[in-house]
């Protein structure tokens, strides 16, 4: 067990190296380095000697790989350089905005789970009932229920999140006046619309996946077996079907946090929510490369972390995985 966890952690090293390397290389490819950016930002035209001296001081004259490893070393200790625009420490700025984004992300994930898991299960069960129920009336009701849920999820899937955000803004804030149009700092009332926007997009996709996972499990032989033995439907559903599809459900949830993290950039910009997404978009507009770099690296690390947690959760959730790990000692 312990060995498995260690192996899983060790396997992260190449991924993390790759992520940091790619982010570092990307910013180098941007064509401008810190020195030219620094002087042109200050509106100065300087001679080549001064530029060279400044480059040597910052270590920019060293080979690419040497630069990468010294950058990586600094990054690990929390030093990601200074912002080209504000001159403030990049990592501190990033950390100060992170809680607001994490708050949105956690709220949206919770809302998504609360909405889409029950709806997905209901839709899957209704789909099966619509084909197998004896009562014709029940069959048509179930078919209608399943189509209804699928229709709603389909609509949600076809709407870009910025459109959803603007629709919410129009109806909840402008027409009904229930909520402030723009969040006044990080407040609960200000979090409602961004959370809803993110959760709507995520639920629409996730609901379909939950439905497919449960439907897949429902069609397995052991379900018919349990039914034939007269086990109650709810018991089959909760104790067997849900438990065995939980693994798929958790994996897909972890994977869909990826689009959630990307989505925060647009949603935070629209609602003026002071998080890292808005920070990144502003940094892109100002060509503030160190900040963009910090955003990319840390968002990727957070995403990798979420997926790691999901992987380790299997050990708790699924006795089959636990058994496998104990028998083979991981791998």
């Amino acid at each position, binding site marked *: 067990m312990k060995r498995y966890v260690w192996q899983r952690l060790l396997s992260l090293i190449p991924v993390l190296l790759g992520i940091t390397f790619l982010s570092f290389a990307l910013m180098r490819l941007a064509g401008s380095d810190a020195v030219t950016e620094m002087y042109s930002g200050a509106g100065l035209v300087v001679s080549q000697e001064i530029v060279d001296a400044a480059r040597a001081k910052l270590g920019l004259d060293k080979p690419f790989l040497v630069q990468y490893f010294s950058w990586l070393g600094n990054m690990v200790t929390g030093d990601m350089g200074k912002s080209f625009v504000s001159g403030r420490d990049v990592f501190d700025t990033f950390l100060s905005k992170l809680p607001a984004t994490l708050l949105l992300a956690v709220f949206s994930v919770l809302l998504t789970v609360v909405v889409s898991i029950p709806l997905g299960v209901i839709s899957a069960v209704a789909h099966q009932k619509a084909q197998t129920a004896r009562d014709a009336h029940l069959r048509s009701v179930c078919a209608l229920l399943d189509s209804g849920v699928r229709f709603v999820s389909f609509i949600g899937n076809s709407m870009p999140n*910025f459109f959803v955000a603007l629709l919410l803004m129009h109806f909840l804030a402008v027409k009904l006046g229930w909520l402030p149009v723009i969040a006044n700092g990080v407040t609960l009332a200000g979090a409602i619309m961004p959370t809803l926007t993110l959760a709507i997009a995520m639920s629409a996709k996730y609901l379909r996946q939950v439905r497919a996972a449960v439907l897949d499990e429902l069609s397995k032989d052991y379900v018919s077996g349990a039914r034939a033995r007269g086990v109650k439907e709810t018991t089959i559903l909760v104790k067997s079907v849900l438990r065995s599809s939980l693994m798929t459900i958790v994996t897909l949830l972890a994977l869909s*946090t990826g689009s959630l993290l990307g989505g925060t950039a647009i949603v935070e910009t629209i609602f003026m929510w002071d998080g890292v997404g808005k920070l990144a978009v502003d940094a892109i507009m100002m060509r503030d490369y160190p900040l963009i770099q910090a955003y990319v690296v840390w968002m990727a690390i957070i*995403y990798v972390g979420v997926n790691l947690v999901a992987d380790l959760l299997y050990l708790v959730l699924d006795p089959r995985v636990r058994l496998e790990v104990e028998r083979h000692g991981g791998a």
Partner: protein
Amino acid sequence: MAVPEPTVRETVIRGSNGKTRLCFFGVMAALLIVSAVFSENLCPYDPYLQDLDAALQQPSAAHIFGTDRYGRDMLSRVIVGSRTSIFSTFLLVAIITTFGTAIGVFCGWARGRADNLLMRVSDLCLAFPGLVFALAVAGVLGGGLSNAVIALAMISWPKYARIARSQTLSVRETSYLKAARLAGCSTSRLILKHILPNIAGPILVTATLDVGTMMMELAGLSFLGLGAKPPTAEWGSMMSETRGLLQTVPWAVFAPGIAIFIAVMVFNLLGDAVRDWMDPKMRVKS
């Protein structure tokens, strides 16, 4: 009472239903494409003509979606915007499909070290949360529609590479491929004539299903100012341009939004129809 087995007639009806759906959404998508091609002939006003006397009008008979702050007719802009939005999406999907498939077939065919390396690279692209990396690439490249396409292509090709690779791996073990090889086919002939046609199905389905997603992501980048630049009529950038008008002329914001919604929906439905039609297993299920 047991559930009656579907009769032959019912099965036939179900089967034809799939084909009808495919044709229906195919025609819808074709209509969208044709109207995008002839968009300039279809719009009632010049989409770039500013008329400040007619600025910020509510929807009326003359301007169905109203006008924006420069008095440009929103309906005309939405119609012309379809060309930018739809064709840049097609270009993007074409790039990732071709590039991803080429890499995937190469990996599946060559195997060994090159395969290992390329697959690690694709793992790496998948390790970044979707739009985050695209944002950074578009930001570094400095906006513009073609750069937005490159940015999204960089994060989207691995999906196709994986499908093509696994398909190639299974096709190369089939007896018809061995027979073709024994018959003296060259490698390029084997790949072009025997592997590609046999792996095209799943790739085509994925590509059709991806059109909607890619359209939304491109529009998202444009919305953030990292794609099409104003005054170019593109749905995402139009919404970002007019979003300040939400309180006064909401239709100027909603019109491009509805256009994206309809286009994405048509392509998503087409994708589902193509998948049901191509994949016999799904056909039986539905």
